[in-house]
């Protein structure tokens, strides 16, 4: 195994546009908002000179390199990454690797997506195949529910508490889309999308962009006094779990595999004790629940008790989705992983305002997507 990239790359600037139904904004508008905020955060005033390359992530757009170059008027190597819901984290990973291998000194990572231009509020139903229909993310991620509920006695109420928590956190995040407290009753009474997911169990659908400026760790303090170091970054891909004969539908394997690699890179032995704050992929409430367990925050089957005792709330032992997560930011796929890094950097630098977690030193962000078949994890720490 490689020695990894721990402490070799620093995040010195982050930016995030206002997430939402950005009817009056083009992808370029959002990319400029996010990138220029990150420039300013990193003290970059001449990107043409100070940025060596761009790594961009988008799932819906197929013209990322052009869109980024054109929006930012950068004459640079631009690489587009697409890896389902792990797209943003994977774009970040590519930027990290390019610096760690010595190819570049400073790179810009931009994740963005604009699903609200499609004219539908949910996923599109494609009729160009006959197998595996309906092809909806809610349907894919719901497949662990019946099995998990039966084995561990959890139910829709436990999932609802996750939505309630994230809605609350979202009210404290200036750039979130949904800023409204909800109750468990609201969640349980909403119309069903794909059992056990009602409307409030699902992430919102929004447009958004987020950006980060990365540089060599040894140059980080040229940009700011409190750089954040990359402790680990990984992605894992796997075959379709629906066909996997060894799948017990009690967890999503890509998360467990990615966590193993990320913890090895970062030298983490006890994630529950060592990680201070986490942004987890809550595309659906159950996805967040399973991630608690698959990431080793608690034993398999024990999530229910930990939800009930408030471990993952803002004031809890290990706050999760401090900004409201995908639930309140929505999920412009390419942007999400970078938006999580934005939140974790703010948390590590004590800049998270009303949602600030005390003395956060180590922060994890996590995406999972596809059937799900792709997982990305990034771990950042104070230098």
């Amino acid at each position: 195994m490689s020695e990894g990239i721990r402490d070799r790359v620093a995040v010195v600037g982050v930016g995030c546009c206002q997430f939402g139904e950005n009817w009056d904004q083009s992808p370029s508008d959002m990319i400029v908002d996010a990138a220029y905020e990150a420039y300013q955060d990193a003290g970059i005033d001449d990107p043409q000179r100070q940025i060596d390359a761009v790594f961009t992530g988008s799932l819906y757009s197929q013209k990322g390199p052009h869109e980024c170059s054109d929006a930012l008027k950068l004459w640079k190597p631009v690489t587009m990454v697409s890896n389902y819901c792990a797209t943003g984290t994977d774009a970040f990973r590519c930027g990290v690797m390019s610096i760690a291998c010595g190819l570049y000194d400073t790179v810009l990572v931009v994740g963005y997506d604009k699903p609200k231009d499609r004219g539908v509020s949910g996923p599109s139903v494609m009729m160009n195949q006959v197998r595996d229909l309906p092809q909806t993310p809610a349907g894919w991620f719901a497949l662990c529910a019946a099995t998990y509920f039966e084995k561990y006695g959890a139910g829709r109420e436990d999932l609802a508490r996750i939505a309630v928590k994230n809605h609350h956190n979202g009210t404290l995040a200036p750039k979130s889309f949904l800023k409204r407290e909800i109750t468990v009753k609201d969640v349980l009474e909403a119309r069903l999308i794909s059992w056990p997911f009602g409307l409030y169990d699902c992430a919102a659908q929004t447009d958004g962009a987020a950006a980060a400026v990365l540089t060599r760790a040894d140059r980080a303090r040229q940009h700011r006094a409190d750089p954040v170091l990359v402790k680990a970054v990984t992605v894992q891909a796997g075959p379709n779990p629906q066909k996997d004969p060894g799948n017990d539908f009690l967890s999503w394997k890509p998360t467990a595999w990615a966590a193993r690699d990320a913890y090895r890179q970062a030298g983490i032995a006890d994630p529950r004790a060592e990680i201070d704050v986490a942004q987890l992929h809550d595309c659906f409430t159950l996805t967040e629940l399973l991630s608690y367990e698959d990431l080793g925050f608690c034993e398999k089957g024990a999530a229910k008790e930990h939800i009930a005792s408030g471990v993952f709330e803002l004031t809890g032992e290990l706050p999760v989705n401090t900004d409201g997560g995908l639930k309140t930011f929505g999920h412009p796929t390419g942007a999400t992983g970078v938006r999580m890094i934005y939140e974790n950097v703010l948390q590590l630098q004590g800049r998270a305002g009303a949602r600030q977690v005390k003395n956060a030193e180590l922060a994890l962000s996590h995406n999972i997507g596809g059937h799900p078949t792709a997982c990305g994890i990034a771990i950042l720490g104070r230098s």
Partner: protein
Amino acid sequence: MVGIASYGAYVPPTRLAFATISGRELERSESDKRARGEQSARGERSEPERSVAWNDEDAVTMGVAAAVECLRGFDRASVDALLFASTTYPFREKQGAALVAKALDLRRDVATADHAGSLRAGSAALRSAFDAVAAGSARSVLVVASDCRLAAPGSGLERSFGDGAAAFLVSDTEPIATFEGGFAIADEIVDLWRGERDRFVHTWEERFVVQEGYTPSLIEAVRGLCARLGASPGDFSTVALYAPDERSHASVARALRLDPARVADPLFGRLGNTGAAFAPMLLAAALESARPGERLLVAGYGDGAEALAFRTTGRIEKLEPRRGVGWHLARRRPVRSYDRYLAARSLDAKEWESGGDPGLSATIHFRERDEDLALVGQRCRHCGAVQFPRQRVCESCFAKDDFEPMRLSDRTGRVVTYTFDFFFPTPDPPTIVTVTEIDGARVHLQLVDTSPKETRIGLPVEPTFRRIHQGGGRPNYYWKARPVPGGETK
């Protein structure tokens, strides 16, 4: 000795009560009772009804289901020819029999032909099969008759029509009923028709159709056959007669001076007139209850009439139990409202014309047809693991290109996990979605003919061939799962 070696039938479980057509929603208690199959004995029913193919069923899927029953216990590789009879096959150009043969995973060198364009297509196909086997050009011919006719909403035909299918294996060895002979007449008459651009079946005035078309033709065919065989209608222990409605049926039976006890129940108010499949289904129903040594007469109608005579053999008692007309009629799921029926048959108003989507690519359909249409998966020769669809590298042991094909459509499986999807367009949400394990293979299948309440992990299920959607403006077929009746698995 030429005859019928096996038979099968299919009736969609969905039933449309005439009261529902009249715009009245069935009382919940009544529909629940009917869903549980209570009051199924004839005469006790409070509501007459008809069978209705749901939105994922059509002449092809019903025909496949009847054929699967017919082939129960028979080697599919022994079928030399397949004749598919229907007036409602969805394509004007493109053969139905080849599609049905693929879904059944029959031999590649199976001879196929469609019989279409007439209500008599079913009996004509049967007759062709007997001729082919008698002539020695085939030893085993599968005949599938299936119809799913559409009547204008609110019309009388809407109540008298039903949807269903029957299948017969015509063979030169070990028949359960030997073919004694047939007699047909051709008659040119404009009584029922559906033109190039018509969606619904048209009919001329009912009294004319019955008096000048149906009644004289059917009587002429039955009498003609009797004359040819030197028999009289009274010599047959069961006489199964096509009829457009219950009253015309009774009047023909009277005219032929048949003992009412020997006239097969035409199933009006339960099944309905299943078009080209109607006479074949009545024949299948007669075979279900026949004992050895009985003589059966079946007569079909359409642009003339055709009568066929059979004599059952001792083998009829040895035939492996199968799902026939009676079995299917006892399995009922009432349609809860007329609106849902209209939606299921695409008779409701929609914002967008369907078919804007390109549908399944013809090249993908071509290379995946064994999997999508015949549900053929593979078994790893290295580790024995079964998987679906076919892939180059083993899911379990990672061996490469070392597989043998394995048909999963005639196996049973169990639900591993499920969800209820309220998003997929369907006339009756939610769509029940499962991962089902069949011989170790995990297959993503929709679950039909049941409700969320009855869905559970471990539920025994069997594959059923269905329309999956209308992408590209044409039917796209695949398999779904349905609960194994009674929960048994083989």
